[in-house]
């Protein structure tokens, strides 16, 4: 409070840098602005006329197929917009129970969906719409000759797994346990796409990811199917959320995902039928 004439400049500079420090502090999550406030006729004059934004929180592995379905939905219902928040299912579940404004949640495992249903944040009972099987992603040409899950335990091989809190990591652990294998990866990645990226950038030799991710990566990785993956097939549940800002359009989106047309897109991406 007292005005000191000989306050050193240094203090000010430190304060300035401290402000920068605060500004640049990392934000890990991607902010999908939920512009769903514009959903005007949720109570609707006619049920066929949908409008506004549908906000879908979906597992990272659904990125390609859901993006396609979102475009189809917008085409079929002019005036609507589908925005996605793709990420690790557990992160998404945590932000939904934390009050993030979302209409639909599509998770990569029943366990992560249970985080939401336990808090009674769902409006409809979750239904399984696809299943997904694990595969090993290796470098193009498979230079390390990986054919079985056991080959990943070779010393000197850099393998990344998803963290055990993420569905793909839980599934990988299940498959490893079922075959009595002990694998020490170089990293437990926070979601399936980060695990895949490490192989795409050739920083890791192999990653245990989903079949669908291998397919989506094209020729940047080579996929190896392994028999043990049958022990760890993930169910993908989808549900309408309780505080959905645009429930009508959200229901229509879920219907599209479960329709023959939607299932076609999903199976082309490598998903298994429910």
């Amino acid at each position, binding site marked *: 409070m007292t005005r000191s004439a000989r306050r050193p400049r*240094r203090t000010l500079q430190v304060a300035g840098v*401290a402000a920068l420090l605060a500004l640049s502090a*990392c*934000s*890990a999550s991607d902010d999908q602005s939920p512009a769903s406030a514009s959903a005007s006729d949720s109570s609707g004059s006619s049920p066929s006329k949908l409008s506004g934004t549908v906000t879908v929180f979906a597992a990272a592995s659904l990125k390609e197929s859901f993006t396609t379905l979102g475009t189809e939905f917008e085409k079929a219902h002019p005036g609507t917009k589908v925005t996605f928040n793709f990420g690790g299912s557990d992160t998404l579940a945590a932000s939904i129970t934390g009050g993030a404004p979302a209409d639909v949640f599509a998770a990569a495992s029943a366990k992560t969906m249970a985080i939401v249903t336990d808090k009674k944040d769902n409006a409809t009972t979750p239904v399984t719409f696809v299943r997904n099987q694990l595969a090993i992603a290796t470098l193009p040409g498979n230079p390390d000759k990986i054919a079985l899950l056991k080959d990943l335990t070779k010393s000197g091989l850099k393998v990344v797994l998803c963290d055990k809190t993420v569905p793909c990591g839980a599934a990988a652990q299940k498959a490893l346990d079922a075959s009595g294998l002990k694998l020490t990866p*170089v*990293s*437990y990645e926070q979601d399936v796409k980060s695990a895949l990226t490490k192989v795409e950038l050739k920083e890791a030799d192999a990653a245990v990811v989903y079949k669908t991710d291998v397919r989506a990566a094209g020729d940047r990785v080579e996929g190896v199917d392994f028999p043990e993956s049958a022990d760890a097939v993930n169910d993908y549940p989808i549900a309408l959320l309780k505080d959905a800002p645009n429930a009508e359009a959200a229901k229509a989106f879920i219907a599209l995902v479960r329709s023959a047309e939607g299932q076609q897109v999903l199976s082309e991406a490598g998903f298994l039928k429910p």
Partner: protein
Amino acid sequence: MPFALLLPALLGLAFLLLPLVALLVRAPWHSLPEQLTSPEVWQALRLSLVCATAATALSLVIGVPLAWLLARTDFPGRGLVRALVTLPLVLPPVVGGVALLLALGRNGVVGQWLDSWFGITLPFTTTGVILAETFVAMPFLVISVEGTLRAADPRYEEAATTLGASRFTAFRRVTLPLIAPGIAAGAVLAWARALGEFGATITFAGNFPGRTQTMPLAVYLALQSDPEAAIALSLVLLAVSIAVLAGLRDRWMTAS
């Protein structure tokens, strides 16, 4: 005291403190002892402290000379160089991590030579964590030291050189003691930034307990499975930061 300043000032203070207060209010105090005695927490905390300290040391060794270069010498394009030095401040840390992978990764621009010549690979190692933290934290030190250097009177150094000291001796014996408080302040900021580093670390060094899983990574992953554990971990990080900053503040950062 003008009310027009006081009101926003108090609002600003409240805005900064409220989230911290909320963390304390919602902390799982009853289960805190068992959360904090788990070996994973200490492992992550120790790794965080070691890496942040090493990153600060590395920043001092290469950052102080860089600050001197920017403050005391004149060369074409100096303004541009200074802007580039501060780039990591505005770059999203995750982008910084990807850039580090492209540069120093096993297949990176420089990293492929490190691998084929020396067999050194940096991603997924503790060294990788230190490098990621240095990349993000060093600009704070450079800016702080450069500012102090500019404010310091160059005539002392000039006097030393006219009396026969080499420029390096003058820097070591005259300039360094003169700007020591600025260096300390910069080092504290860099250390604090390194301690909280998340994005570049998880992208460049991955996440493996005991090797590359620092506290912020542990907090992020715990948040997904066990929010109470995450809050407990955050409290530890908060307590350590406050203790260190408060301790150093008394010594270095108060007005002399």
